[in-house]
């Protein structure tokens, strides 16, 4: 079912606004990732959708209907909690059956549904285990099966992979995405791990201090961050601070045009490591730097280049490994960057869609 939030605000007495006018629309069948640092309000937003917390202002619509008057019991929302919150004193079977028992379904029907789900989450044979006897990944799957048992219209997951080992986490999140596609449910998950959000979400909601910074596809959020915060929070980046002089700003020895900024504007340049290319030095006009660190990352190398004034982190494809020698000088060029105006006293920043023009500073 679709979800719509209209100007949701949440304030706790004596504190800054936990949520400040959040509006968004989620289409049926989408998987959305709420991404942000702790305290950004992402979990509060999820809890408001579930009905576990009441917003101070604004409306929540599920399937086009306002649900503000409905308690969590009536919202038909399945929730997977952080650390799973499995019923400790119940077996896996009883945990999954709980929602069905509450609905007073027949024993036979409950049994069939639980068995079906056990098979679905690949936990057959573990139905008589207690939660303490399960590994993190297994517990997570039980929590998911329990939430799905009453056939909710919406699935909400609060930091679902936070307590799981890295390797299992990767597998598990792909599997959760498969489950989402398979059931055709609308899902929202909360995470502070940008990699997780970018990998499995259809769209990512980046939050900061109770406000939406950006809501877009992973590609948009990564490649076209519309604020300095998003550029910082999503993905690795090089940061360069400078002042405009003569409508230009210097990035080390490279200088770029900033036509519509008055001189003396403080700017913050963000360059993704993938947007810097290195090659062999071919002419005296090349901008160069010295390789000072190389780390192997599997499919590519993470390389640090030191120039006269700055140090840049660059992703270098495997094919170029013949260049990677500590102490060697290489030429580098920028293929893309983002420029934000620095506003001291404010967290807001402006989008500046500049075209790239690279020229060696004279």
């Amino acid at each position: 079912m679709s979800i719509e939030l209209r100007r949701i605000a949440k304030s706790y007495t004596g504190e800054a606004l936990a949520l400040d006018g959040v509006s968004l629309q989620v289409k049926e069948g989408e998987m959305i990732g709420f991404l942000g640092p702790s305290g950004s309000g992402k979990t509060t937003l999820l809890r408001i959708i579930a009905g576990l917390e009441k917003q101070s202002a604004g409306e929540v619509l599920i399937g086009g209907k306002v649900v503000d008057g409905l308690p969590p019991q009536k919202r038909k929302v399945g929730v997977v909690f952080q650390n799973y919150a499995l019923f400790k004193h119940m077996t896996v079977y009883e945990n999954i059956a709980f929602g069905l028992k509450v609905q007073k379904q027949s024993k036979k029907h409950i049994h069939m549904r639980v068995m079906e789900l056990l098979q679905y989450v690949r936990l057959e044979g573990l139905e008589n285990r207690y939660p303490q006897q399960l590994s993190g990944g297994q517990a997570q799957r039980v929590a998911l099966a329990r939430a799905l048992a009453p056939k909710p219209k919406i699935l909400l997951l609060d930091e679902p992979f936070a307590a799981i080992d890295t390797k299992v986490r990767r597998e598990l999140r792909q599997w959760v995405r498969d489950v989402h596609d398979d059931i055709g449910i609308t899902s929202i998950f909360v995470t502070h791990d940008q990699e997780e959000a970018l990998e499995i979400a259809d769209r990512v909601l980046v939050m900061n201090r109770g406000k939406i910074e950006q809501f877009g596809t992973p590609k948009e959020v990564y490649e076209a961050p519309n604020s300095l915060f998003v550029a910082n929070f999503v993905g690795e980046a090089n940061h360069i601070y400078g002042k405009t002089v003569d409508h230009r700003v210097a990035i080390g020895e490279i200088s770029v045009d900033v036509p519509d900024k008055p001189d003396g504007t403080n700017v913050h340049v963000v360059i993704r490591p993938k947007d810097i290319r290195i090659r062999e030095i071919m002419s005296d006009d090349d901008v160069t730097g010295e390789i000072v660190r190389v780390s192997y990352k599997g499919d590519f190398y993470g390389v640090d280049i030191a120039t006269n004034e700055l140090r840049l982190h660059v992703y270098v494809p495997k094919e170029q490994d013949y260049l990677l020698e500590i102490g060697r000088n290489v030429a580098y060029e920028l293929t893309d960057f983002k420029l934000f105006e620095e506003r001291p006293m404010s967290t807001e920043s402006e989008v500046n869609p500049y075209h790239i023009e690279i020229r060696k500073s004279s």
Partner: protein
Amino acid sequence: MIRQIRARLAFITISGYLLLLIVLPTGAIFTQAFSHGADKFLSAITQPIGLAALGLTVRMALFTAVINGITGTIVAFVLVRFRLPGRRLLNAIVDLPFAIPTTVSGLMLIFLYGPTSPLGAWLAAHGVKIIYSPLAILLAMVIVTFPYTIRSVQPLLEELDPRMEEAAWTLGAQQTRVFRSILLPVMWPGITTGCSLCFSRALSEFGAVVMVAGNIPMHTQVSAYYLYGLLENYDSQGAASVSVVLLAISFFALLYQLFATRRFTRNQNKRVRLRELELGR
């Protein structure tokens, strides 16, 4: 070598201490009780006055366990769940019955409910007599054992993840259902432990009860006072016999509680062990 000697020394000291403090006195009671043979023992414990006292004591102790089982659970719940102002003070007050000498607790009851107090007079005018009635015994026992259930339920509730309840809500469970299926099972071991402690302690209560009961034979006399009376009359064999019965009841209550908690923890341990096996594989 030295360590071994030291360990042995520590063991001997502790055993000796326990022997002196618990085992020997208990043994002395038994010796005394059976000093004139089993017949004398039986006749001592089947005296009508003694039996009435025992019946009253056990009945009141059971009531106490039930009352404090229920109210203690509620108080524990309120203390843990409601962030009331003055919660800390309330939490400290809970332990007062342990701190106040029990005879003083009894005295307080007399001053509050006695026929000379305004409250006691008012109650008497409405046909309710508290002091020198079984009701007074019950009140005294309830006060003295008040903290037990609270203190055994509290940690379990504090440990309970509130998200477990929230999960139940999102699965459609109303609050009564959540209480029955989630909260009660979690609190249960604490409630049973609290009840059995209340029972044992109420069974043996002397000071507070003696002050308020009036100690009328066949009516408001409890076993502890009955055996005290026997001793006063130089019937040490009779007193010892009644003691043995009280001891046995207390012992069985304790045993039951140990058994109940052991069964609970053993289940927990079994789960943990199984998990270790699983991980090991």
